[in-house]
C-alpha cells in the first residue's frame, strides 16, 4: 500500500523534475544556440534555424536569446557541462570568452565556407557570420542637409539634439574610440575622444542607457542625430519612423559578430552544422534582404538592396569603407574608460 510519505516523495520528485527539466535531460539534450535578443532572434528563428534543420535532418534546436555577458556567465557557471552549445558575441565579449577558455577552435579544415569569408571575418576561435555597422543616424524631417562626417555631430545647430550611449555598449565604446582616432588618438589612448565628448556636451540631448533605448529616442523627437547601428535604424525606418543612416566619409565602424563552439558541448557535430549554416552564402544572402538587412561576410554573397545602397556595393568596397577596431587593445582599458565616463560625463 502506498502511504502518505511515499506519496509525498513521489510528488516532490515529479515537482522537481518539472521545475528542473535538465535533471532528466542531462545526458541527451537538444542543441542550444544563444543568440541576441530582439531582431537578431527573429532573424535567426526565421532564416538560420530552418536552414540548419534542413542540413541536419530536422535536428532539434532551441534558441536562448541572451546578451553576450549573460551567455558567458551561464557557460562559466557550468564549464564541464555547459547549457549552451553555440554562442554569439560582439568583439569585446568574444575576447573575454576566448581568454576564459570557454570556446573551442573552429574546425577550419572541415568547413566548406570558412575560406570564402573576407579576411576580417576569419578567426580560428570563431568566425564572423555577420558584421554590425555603426554610422551616423539622423532624422531627415529635421535635418535637411545629410551629415557626411562624424564631426558634423559637433555643429552648434544641433544643440540639445544629439544622442549617444554610455560605454556599457559596444556602440558607445566603438564611437569613443573612433572619434579619438579621428583626433589623433588610438585604441590605446582615447583621451582625445573624452575631450571631444566634453565638447559635445552642449549638443547632448540624451546619453541613453543602451542602444535599444537610443534608437527609440528618434521616434519621440528627443534626439535628431547621433551614432547608430545600421540594423537597428533600418528596423525603425521600416516601421515608419523618420530616420536615415549614412556611412560617414571617415568610414563606418564595423564590428564582427562572431559565432563560437562552446568547449565541452555535448552536441559538437550539430553545433558545427549550425555554424556552417550561418556562414553559408544562402543564409547570409537571405539575411541581407529586407527586413533583416544584416551585412554578410561571405564573399560569395552578391551584395544588393539597402546594404549596397547605404554601405558598400561589393566586398572590395566594404574592405575600403569599413573601419575595424582593435578590441584586444580596447578591452585592456575599457574598465578604466567606463570609470572615467561615470565620473566625468554629466549632462
Amino acid at each position, binding site marked *: 500500500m502506498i502511504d502518505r510519505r511515499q506519496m509525498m516523495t513521489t510528488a516532490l520528485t515529479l515537482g522537481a523534475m518539472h521545475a528542473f527539466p535538465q535533471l532528466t535531460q542531462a545526458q541527451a539534450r537538444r542543441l542550444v544556440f544563444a543568440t541576441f535578443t530582439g531582431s537578431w532572434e527573429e532573424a535567426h528563428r526565421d532564416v538560420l534555424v530552418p536552414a540548419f534543420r534542413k542540413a541536419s535532418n530536422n535536428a532539434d534546436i532551441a534558441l536562448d536569446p541572451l546578451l553576450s555577458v549573460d551567455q558567458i556567465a551561464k557557460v562559466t557557471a557550468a564549464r564541464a557541462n555547459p547549457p549552451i552549445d553555440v554562442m554569439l558575441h560582439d568583439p569585446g565579449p568574444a575576447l573575454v570568452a576566448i581568454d576564459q577558455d570557454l570556446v573551442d577552435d573552429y574546425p577550419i579544415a572541415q568547413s566548406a565556407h570558412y575560406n570564402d569569408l573576407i579576411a576580417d571575418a576569419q578567426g580560428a576561435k570563431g568566425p564572423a557570420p555577420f558584421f554590425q555597422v555603426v554610422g551616423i543616424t539622423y532624422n531627415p524631417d529635421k535635418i535637411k542637409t545629410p551629415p557626411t562626417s562624424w564631426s558634423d555631430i559637433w555643429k552648434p545647430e544641433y544643440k*540639445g539634439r544629439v544622442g549617444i550611449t554610455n560605454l556599457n555598449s559596444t556602440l558607445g565604446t566603438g564611437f569613443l574610440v573612433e572619434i579619438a582616432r579621428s583626433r589623433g588618438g588610438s585604441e590605446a589612448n582615447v583621451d582625445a575622444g573624452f575631450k571631444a565628448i566634453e565638447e559635445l556636451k552642449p549638443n547632448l540631448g540624451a546619453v*541613453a542607457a543602451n542602444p535599444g533605448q537610443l534608437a527609440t529616442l528618434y521616434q519621440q523627437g528627443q534626439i535628431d542625430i547621433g551614432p547608430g547601428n545600421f540594423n537597428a535604424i533600418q528596423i525603425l525606418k521600416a516601421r515608419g519612423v523618420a530616420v536615415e543612416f549614412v556611412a560617414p566619409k571617415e568610414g563606418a565602424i564595423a564590428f564582427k559578430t562572431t559565432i563560437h563552439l562552446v568547449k565541452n558541448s555535448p552536441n559538437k557535430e550539430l553545433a558545427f552544422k549550425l555554424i556552417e549554416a550561418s556562414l553559408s552564402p544562402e543564409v547570409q544572402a537571405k539575411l541581407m534582404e529586407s527586413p533583416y538587412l544584416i551585412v554578410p561576410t561571405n564573399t560569395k554573397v552578391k551584395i544588393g538592396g539597402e546594404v549596397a545602397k547605404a554601405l558598400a556595393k561589393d566586398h572590395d568596397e566594404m574592405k575600403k569603407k569599413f573601419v575595424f577596431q582593435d578590441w584586444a587593445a580596447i578591452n585592456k582599458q575599457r574598465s578604466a574608460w567606463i570609470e572615467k565616463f561615470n565620473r566625468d560625463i*554629466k549632462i
Partner: protein
Amino acid sequence: MRSAPVTTYDLKLALPLAGFFALFFVAPLLILILVSFYTDTSLTQFGLVQYARFLLDPFSLSVLVSTLWLGVKVTLLCLLLGFPLAWTFVRSPRLAQGVLMLIIVLPLLTSVVVRTFAWIVILGRQGIVNNLLLSLGLADTPLRLLYTDGGVVVALAQVQMPLMVLPLITALSRIDPNLRDASSALGAGAWRSFIKVILPLTLPGIMAGCLLTFAAAITAFITQSLVGGGQMLFMPMYLYQQSSTLSNWPFAAAISIIFLVAVLGAVTLFNLLGRLSRGYAQG
C-alpha cells in the same frame, strides 16, 4: 494517540518554506559575501581590496549617497501626493471608492517598462509638458526634463505610488470617524484635529508606506536607467556595469553588500523613528 491542540500550528509546517529560503536565498547570499572578499576577478586571493576600493573612493560613496537621497526624495513626494489621495478615498462614497481603487492600483497592473516609457513620452523634448509650455509661450525652447534628477524623482513617484497609498488607506480606514467628530466637538479646528488625532493614528501606515516606497525606489533599475539615462549613475546601474559589462564580480559583490548594509541601516532608522512616533501616538 493524543491529538495536538487545533489552535496551535506545528512549526514543522514551515520547514518546506524555510528549506526553500535556505537554498535559494541564504545560500546565494553567503556566496555573494564570499565572492566580495576576493581581490581579483579570477577569484584566487582573499582580501578586503574591493571594500577599500568602494569605501575610500569619494566617487563611489557619492553614488551611494545620491541613491539613498533619491529614495528619500521619492518617498517624501509619494507621501505628499499619496496622503490626500488616500484621504479622499476613505471619505468617498462606496461607488467612487471602486473607481478610485482601480485608478490607484492601475499602475501595478501595467508593466514598469510601459509606465517608464510613458514618462519618456511625457518628459521628452517634444513631450506633453514641453509642448504645453511652448504653446503657452512659457518657454522659447524645449526644456530638458528627461535625464534630470527631477524627472527621475517624478517618474519613480508615480511608478511606486500604490506602495504608499495602499498602506495609508488601510491605516486611515481603521480610524474611528467618531474621533474626529469628538475632536471638533471639543473645539479643535480642522488642522488641529488632523495633526493631533489623525496623523498620529496613521503613523503605522505612513511608516509602512515609506519603507516600501523607499526600498522600491532605490532599487528601481529600469526606471532609473531609462528616465535617468546612461550618465546618471545610481547603485543598481553601478552594480550592473561592474558585473555585466566588466565581469568584475568581486567588486560587484562588494557593491551589493555595501548597498544591502546601507539599506538595512536606513530601514533600521525608519523603524526607530516609527517606534518613537508610536510612543508619541500613545502618550
